[in-house]
């Protein structure tokens, strides 16, 4: 099998923040009673259970709190089918939903010291360090489309959106970078 083709084909835009197509990643939607999911999460992606709005681990293996009955699990793209099966097996007999959504989404990496500043051009969320600490998994919108993001550090962040609008989000982010910093954080 050839390599998976992400929606914007490895595009990179450099400026006060660098916007990079992060390529294909394994992503699994897991819905169920959070109290029953810890073992499945561990088995599937090796991560702990995130608390409200947090992400445990990261793209290579992690779990993000998406709603009171939903998690988004992360693993390598090639491992998604296996991870999904592990979760399914672990939860057998429970009421749950597990689905591979690796291909439904696009992932962008942001790098640079102006990440909060850049996102503030596009997102209505409070992006201050107090409101958005590292590891806070924020679901909101960028421009006109739904998106989720978290900061791993002040210099690195990950943005996830739907695949079909990945070119739009890439254009939005790179145009915003082109404008230079607002200077508010």
């Amino acid at each position: 099998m050839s390599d998976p083709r992400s929606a914007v084909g490895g595009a990179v835009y450099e400026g006060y923040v660098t916007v990079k197509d992060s390529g294909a990643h394994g992503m699994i939607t897991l819905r169920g009673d959070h109290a029953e999911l810890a073992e499945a999460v561990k088995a599937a992606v090796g991560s702990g259970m995130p608390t409200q709005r947090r992400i445990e681990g990261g793209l290579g293996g992690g779990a993000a709190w998406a709603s009171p009955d939903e998690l988004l699990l992360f693993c390598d793209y090639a491992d998604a089918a296996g991870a999904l099966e592990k979760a399914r097996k672990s939860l057998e007999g429970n009421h749950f939903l597990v689905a591979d959504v690796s291909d439904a989404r696009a992932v962008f990496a942001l790098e640079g010291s102006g990440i909060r500043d850049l996102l503030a051009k596009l997102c209505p969320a409070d992006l201050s360090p107090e409101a958005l600490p590292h590891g806070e998994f924020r679901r909101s919108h960028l421009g006109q489309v739904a998106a989720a993001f978290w900061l791993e550090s002040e210099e690195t962040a990950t943005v996830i959106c739907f695949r079909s609008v990945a070119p739009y989000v890439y254009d939005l982010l790179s145009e915003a970078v082109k404008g230079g910093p607002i200077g508010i954080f």
Partner: protein
Amino acid sequence: MSTRLSTGGRLIDRAKPVSFQFNGRKMQGFQGDNLAAALLANGQVVMGRSFKYHRPRGVVASGAEEPNALVGLGEGGRFEPNQRATTTELFDGLTAISQNHWPSLDFDVGAVNSSLSRFLPAGFYYKTFIHPRAAWKHLFEPFIRKSAGLGKPSNPGDPDTYEHAYVHVDLLIVGGGIAGLQAALTAAKTDAKVLLLEQEAHWGGRAPVDGAEIDGVAAEEWIKNALQTLEAAPNVTLRKRCMGSGVYDHGYALAYERCTDHMPGAAGPRHRLWRIRAGQIITATGALERPLSFSGNDRPGVMLASALRDYIVNYGVSPGDRVVVVTNNDDAYRTALAVKDSGLTVACIIDARASADGPLPQACRDAGIRVETGKAIAGVGMKGKALKFVDICAQAGEGSVLETVGCDAVAMSGGWSPVVHLWSHCGGKLLWSEDNFHFYPDVTRFPTDHKGAQYVRTAGIASGAMLTHEVLGNASESAVAALEQLGHSAEAWRPSATGSEEGAMAPVWVMPQGASKAKKSKMWLDFQNDVKVSDVELAAQEGYQSVEHTKRYTTLGMATDQGKLSNINGLAVLSGALNQPIPQTGTTTFRPPYTPISMGVIAGPGTGKTFQPLRKTPMHGWHEANGADWEPVGQWRRPYCYTKSGESREAAVSREIRNTRDSLGLLDASTLGKILVTGPDAGKFLDMLYTNMMSTLKPGKCRYGLMCNENGFLMDDGVVARLDENSFLVHTTSGGADHMHAHMEDWLQCEWWDWKVYTANLTEQYAQIAVVGPNARKLLEKLGGMDVSKEAMAFMEHADGELAELPVRVYRISFSGELSYEIAVPANRGLELWEKIVEAGAEWNITPYGTEALHVMRAEKGFIMIGDETDGTVIPQDLNLSWAISKKKEDFLGKRAQARSHMASAERWKLVGLETIDGSVLPDGAYALAEGTNENGQRNTQGRVTSTYHSPTLGRGIAMGLVLHGPDRMGEVLKFNKVDGSAVEAKIVDPVFYDKDGEKQNV
């Protein structure tokens, strides 16, 4: 004649000359000038013409409230009309043109309006342009079009960029004068997050011009120190050139930053819209001076006293050698002193008050300036376009001239009005001051936020505090109140301040008080829209009592300055005419934005390629490279057809259909909605959602179903595939995926929350490719990897497996009537599979087809399309889909509604096929004509066309439509209307036009 003084000008840098052009004439200014100051420095007193009468006008103000000096700035795509010269910072290479004149600023044909002004009174448009009707088209409209319109738009696209900034702060302070600075200094001592905005390019507002001393130092020094403190405070953000434009609900506010207007071509966005969510808002927006209404007050050379003072002190510009000051208050005496200090002459101070004995008038008298109390201006004398003299009369009288005083500039002051706009935007109420004769915020009736608490406060002059120490104290106290609301404790303090005390002002609105009608028709209230005292009085006389109505009837306050100078004077005149107190008349509504903001900044990033999100399938690029003619489907772009070089759309669609029916076609069906529904109650849930039974579907099978809303009308349709005991994959229409997913979640979260069902919208996880036509199976077999034989995969079955070494789920379903497989593959592999199919299908002349071929083929088979056969008023029974409505189920969404008498009526129009007698294509949406007319005289109808196409398969027009008793009238010929008024005949037939027995798909 105005000119540059040899000294002075606190804002300009005389070491840095700047060249610019006005109406093609080269001029020189200095860095720090605004355009109005630079024009005055070059002797350019006339800067524009008024809107209605095209009267020559000079600058009247020095800031955002300017109504007259509007210019067109820039060139080409950067040209922008209606820019205030007073808020335009001068830069090297600036080009400006004046507006509202033809052929030139100096000589204007339209100024004939002016001599006809007595024929153009208030409400002229309403009164005159009504009759006769024919005159509208040939006389009135061309005249209005030629003379109306303020400025002209730029034609090429705007090359600049604009952006938004979402900001969350505890305390927003609007206005960087001494009040705003003092409020910020108070807040800087806490750890509240503070944003302080100033609309101008410099801080401190008017205090340095007015010469106050604060804490023992000159205002200028105090401001510098305050800024140093604030810049060092980690919790305070400062922004200049950023105008607080509006206050909205729940602590939301907008601000408009002009980032690069003063340095065009610089990197970065031109304007930025700040979308601020603030816990508390303080508006320290200062006050605006009011003009006085005297005959000739619109003449070039007459300006606000504060503006004249600004031009001298801030820019070292003399608006005239010999200045007359006319006033009803003490503040204007500061202007007289400034004129005197700059070495120019004050011809006379004309004070409408009976006496003026405060410290400021005293200082003027001590400086040898002549002061005339109880006097007024009876008229203004011009020589050409230059102001030459004023006639003086008694304020108490009717205007008999006592004396003529030579002068070339007039400084007028009618008192000050606090800028209460932002306070009022979200419901702050006002009180009328009987001391200062202005509206000011009523602190007991404040705007409230989501908690029902006060969230807007005013500071300084915006509160109605007129003296410097009161301004500073009030600002500090407002800040403390706001901070306490935010949970921070802070302490207010009152810096000591000196500045002359002012004597009482007098409520003089019109001078002289007994002015004749002729005089009043030369007293301007709204300079830009040419509304005069006589217009407002006429409106009152004609019965207009509401200030809102008067505004619209006279256009008072409707210009680009939104009545900043005219409103209070106008409503004072209206109150006088109605013989009622001013507070009883009230004000018009204050609405955002405070001053106009650019269209570009409102759009922000929503332009060009990010105008709207276009959704693209994984094969989008392939389609583009292969001649796709795009059609929008929701936010998706889908190929309508693929045109080859020289081929028409019609020919392409025909080719795609013929090749598909004869051999092999290929459709990108990725946009189709795909929703996973899983859980022990999933079957029960789908039984509620669909009109037919889904719980009985066996794993591995597919079933077509209909979804209705609670009102009984069809919402969506599609194929449901049962994956296993607990899970279904629901296919929705392309446009309906998000909506149907939301619909499911709504019922699950809000009604049946105890049912064990989870959903996930997997629409974008899969690229879906339909392989369609007699050779479809051969193609899949050639790709290899799974058994797709008739025996292994019957019609309406699905299976997981591999094709061409890719993981797939194959559904044997058909929307075309052909042998057809839909292949779902992970989206990141979609293009790869598509390309492999195209390559493998070459031997069968595989033809990608678009949405139009899809539509025609489904119509040939009589399949309905949501949005064509349905329009939100159609129920499944109308479409002869009763077979898909379960009789066994006790309940499903829409069942109760469909039991209503109108829904069960036999008179509802029902689906039939339609064939024109002449083979032509019926017009889309055409009505089937019936005999007679209805009570409105309209032709009766008995049906309508819902889908109509040319069928290349049958070589004729085919259509579907809803017809009264249609299914019972097979063979009957109906007439359908055409747009040209003629009618076309069509026969009622079975809606299945092609392969009625379904033999082609069952091979």
